[in-house]
């Protein structure tokens, strides 16, 4: 059986080609300002010398990704001229001819080949203990669909416009390499990824600790505690050299030109607000709402005075700075401390009681989720950083499958406000239904012996998303509320989803700690 799954990969290419065709159909859909962002970067990297890349500011969408991504844009711009030369003019702001759209959309679709390859490698790691004659019931098939047809990636990359598929290709490939025991390659790929987009710094602790603990130390004591003498210096040095090499290639030229501080200031703009324009469904969304609720309560009970409350405190999302009235305001430093505090236990577990690659993956997901929960100016898109790696776990155990369904459904739902145009409304609902129905039914069937994946409360919570969507997109625009509280749907969506994300965060943490205390926890089911 195992041989036959490996030999016949035609089903995999069918899935991959099928989703690529779907992506092609999405070419004429709505695109966000990110489209212009990337067009601008094409123009900058094509026209200016490297020394000007991080200084150019004709467009408001300045280059704010690390240098390797700039080189990637440079590479793309070499082909762009054959489609439409005008898109490479820096001053051609908001230029979007048909050829430009075609080129940029196709560049995303083509660069997704790396993602497809990475998914294939991940699927190969899925040894498939559960054997089934029916291909559709095999974990490896389900995993391939969950990753390749991921709703979030489809709408963020191929409608909203970004290159996440390409970047996640690096992440998943490096995870697959770690699973295959090719740690050095994993480290190399991850350092490249860090230099493509620095948001992946959030999961770096998982990599650092895992590689140090399980790769640089070659032996464990019987009780799984560390054996200091087994430290393998060559491996450590190899890792260090690999990582430094990649960073040197990427940042070296800018250090040599004395532009490091300029580059870093572009990469880490702390002037933005606590919450992104659309609130990400994280801890701060709940915090803000609590503050607002307390304010209203205070006003009602006459504990607060009207004049003292600034008018701008609750305009929803447009105001970048958010002033809390009752709860203490949050500064970037606080969010950083919260994030580190949330990551520490997971990393500590990874160090103290290594569980092999599975433990590493779990820690990586926790790091991603923790930073999503507590980070500064988090985009809702960042939830994909947790959802995609969690897909790998979801086909391995019953608990993780249930977790995956909750997290992916709420996380994906929170992406809905990204697409606010009418033609895309049916599209996002249909795509979301397609992905959710598939993941629920196939995972439920995979673990049918272990009982239901979701308990009644969880199922009710997830079903509640349907009336929420109906209210936000259909009923709300028809009511007079629209003029008074234009941001109400965004607020409701992010708060409702924040509950689910928080719940899965806590549950995932619990499962990691349980797992560490009792390694056979999963098999007892």
């Amino acid at each position, binding site marked *: 059986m195992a041989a036959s799954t490996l030999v016949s990969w035609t089903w995999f290419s069918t899935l991959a*080609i099928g989703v690529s065709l779907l992506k*092609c*159909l999405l070419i004429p*859909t709505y695109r966000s300002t990110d489209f212009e962002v990337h067009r601008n970067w094409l123009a900058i990297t094509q026209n200016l010398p490297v020394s000007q890349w991080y200084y150019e500011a004709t467009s408001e969408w300045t280059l704010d990704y690390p240098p390797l991504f700039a080189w990637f844009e440079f590479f793309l711009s070499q082909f762009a001229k054959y489609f439409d030369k005008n898109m490479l003019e820096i001053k051609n702001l908001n230029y979007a001819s048909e050829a430009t759209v075609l080129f940029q959309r196709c560049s995303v679709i083509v660069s997704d080949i790396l993602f497809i390859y990475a998914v294939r490698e991940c699927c190969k790691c899925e040894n498939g203990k559960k054997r089934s004659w029916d291909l559709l019931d095999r974990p490896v098939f389900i995993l391939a669909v969950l990753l390749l047809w991921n709703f979030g990636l489809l709408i963020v990359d191929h409608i909203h416009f970004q290159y996440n598929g390409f970047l996640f290709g690096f992440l998943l490939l490096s995870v697959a390499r770690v699973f295959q025991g090719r740690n050095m390659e994993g480290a190399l790929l991850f350092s490249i990824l860090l230099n493509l987009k620095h948001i992946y710094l959030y999961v770096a602790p998982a990599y650092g600790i895992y590689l140090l603990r399980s790769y640089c130390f070659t032996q464990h004591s019987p009780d799984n505690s560390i054996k200091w003498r087994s430290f393998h210096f060559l491996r450590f040095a190899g890792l260090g050299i690999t990582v430094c090499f990649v960073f040197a290639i990427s940042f070296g030229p800018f250090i040599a030109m004395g532009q490091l501080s300029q580059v870093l200031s572009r990469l880490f703009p702390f002037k933005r607000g606590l919450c992104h324009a659309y609130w990400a469904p994280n801890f701060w969304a709940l915090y803000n709402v609590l503050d607002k609720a307390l304010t209203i309560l205070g006003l009602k009970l006459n504990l607060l005075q009207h004049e003292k409350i600034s008018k701008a405190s609750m305009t929803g999302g447009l105001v970048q700075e958010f002033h809390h009235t009752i709860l203490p305001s949050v500064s970037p430093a606080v969010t950083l401390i919260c994030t580190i505090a949330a990551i520490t236990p997971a990393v500590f577990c990874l160090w103290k009681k290594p569980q092999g690659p599975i433990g590493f993956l779990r820690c990586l997901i926790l790091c991603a989720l923790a930073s999503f929960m507590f980070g500064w100016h988090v985009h809702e898109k960042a939830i994909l950083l947790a959802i995609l790696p969690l897909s790998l776990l979801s086909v391995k155990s019953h608990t993780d499958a249930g977790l995956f369904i909750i997290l992916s459904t709420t996380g994906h739902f929170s992406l809905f406000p990204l697409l606010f145009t009418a033609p895309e409304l049916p599209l996002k609902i249909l795509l979301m*239904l*397609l992905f959710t*129905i598939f993941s629920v039914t196939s995972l439920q*069937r995979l673990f049918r012996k272990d009982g239901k994946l979701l308990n009644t409360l969880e199922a009710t919570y997830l079903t509640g998303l349907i009336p929420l969507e109906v209210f936000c997109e259909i009923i709300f625009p028809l009511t007079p509320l629209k003029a008074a509280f234009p941001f109400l749907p965004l607020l409701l969506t992010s708060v409702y989803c924040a509950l689910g994300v928080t719940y899965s965060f806590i549950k995932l943490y619990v499962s990691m700690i349980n797992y560490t205390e009792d390694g056979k926890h999963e098999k007892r089911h």
Partner: protein
Amino acid sequence: MDTWSFVALSGLLSLIVRWTVSLSSYSGAGKPPMFGDYEAQRHWQEVTFNLPIHKWYFNSTDNNLLYWGLDYPPLTAYHSLLCAYVAHLVNPDWVALKSSHGYESQAHKLFMRATVLAADLIVYIPAVFMYAFYFCEGSSKKKASFALSVLLFPGLILIDHGHFQYNCVSLGFALWGIFFIALQWDILGSVAFCFALNYKQMELYHSLPFFCYLLGKCLRKGLKGKGLILLIKIAVSVIMSFALCWLPFLLDTQQSLQVLRRLFPVDRGLFEDKVANTWCSLSVLIKMKTLLLPQTQVQLSFAATLLAALPSCTKLIFQPTISGFRLSLVNCSFAFFLFSFQVHEKSILLAALPVCLLIPEVPFMATWCLLVSTFSMLPLLLKDGLLLPYIVTSLAFLLVSITLLAVSGLTSVDDLKLTPLAHFIRKCAAWVKVESLAKSLFMLSVVSMAVLSVMSATLNPPSNLPDLFPVAVSLFSYLHFLAFFIYFSAVHLLESPNKEDQKKVS
């Protein structure tokens, strides 16, 4: 996975494809003064909404019949009226008399697209699923793959959701008719087919098999006993459903005659544009349109059509089986498409629908035929700016047929349902290896379609032959259609009469 999730997933997938195709351009977008089928449909909403019913089909100052006058049967008009009510509710400008001519906006496009999707979702898609789950043998996975491949047939998607028409309604009713008849619910089947016919007169392509099958069935039951009763029941239900559809026009003979005149415009010529049928293809050599009198043209095409449909129909009358009925639907619609008067390139959809139903039986030939039928509409699709959806949906259909239906492995003589010919082939043409021959012909055909598509889309034709590519496409498709017509006729005529009885026994 469970059956229902298969249904949900394939249904969702086909809806997604339909909606993404509908985001592209439509026929006559931004092309005054006449625009295209999109404007025709909008105009019908305007006319039916603003004028009393007895003025719909008559020329008047408010209803210029030369500007997309209503030329479809009453059900289309009622459907337009229904859509017009919704349109009026959303934005009265969309259906304002006269002032709305050529109205185009993003919101309006969205509305029009939504009406097609709704019609598709209500009529056509459920019919496909019902048919698949009752009459496709095998596991639910197999049924779902069949349903998915029918729903992803690019021709219908591109014409309805790209070019803009409501073929899904008429074809959907026809499919419901076929479904009921296959269930042996003859009366419901004939009623459904009457609705199809009263939505679009082009459904006449399918009428002969319906008639012959039901007649054959009555004959078999004996015209003196049960058969007569069945015949009377069917006749009454057909007359009743026609009367229901035509009710407002029946009170006045002038009305009925005018509607009929609008439905069958004899003066519009033998064929339109470049269509892959016999007359258009012959006109490359002989200019039939100018040589013959219009009256002769009508007679000639009528005779040719009847002659082509005759064998299949005769066989059906004497052996009214369900599989024969399906094959006869294919043959008769091909006969009409290839030989009848005033054929549009879109009419190939009428042949494509029954071909879809043959996917479980002869998957190889059926998918091939469906690919060619999509290709035959390429000039039209290019005019509408639907190149990208055309390429993507065709590739998707090819992908589905190769992987889900495994068509490339089903090319033996038995798979092609030519078993009676096997002996003959072995004897007279032993050197022919049917399997590899079929496969290589298929490859050759697909590659040439790809090459012709690329050439039509990218190259400028030489100035002395401006229609080079459309003519090449239609000739190429014509040869295929002729071959498919002969093939499907052969399958029908060679079919052993006892096949279904044997199945029932076993």
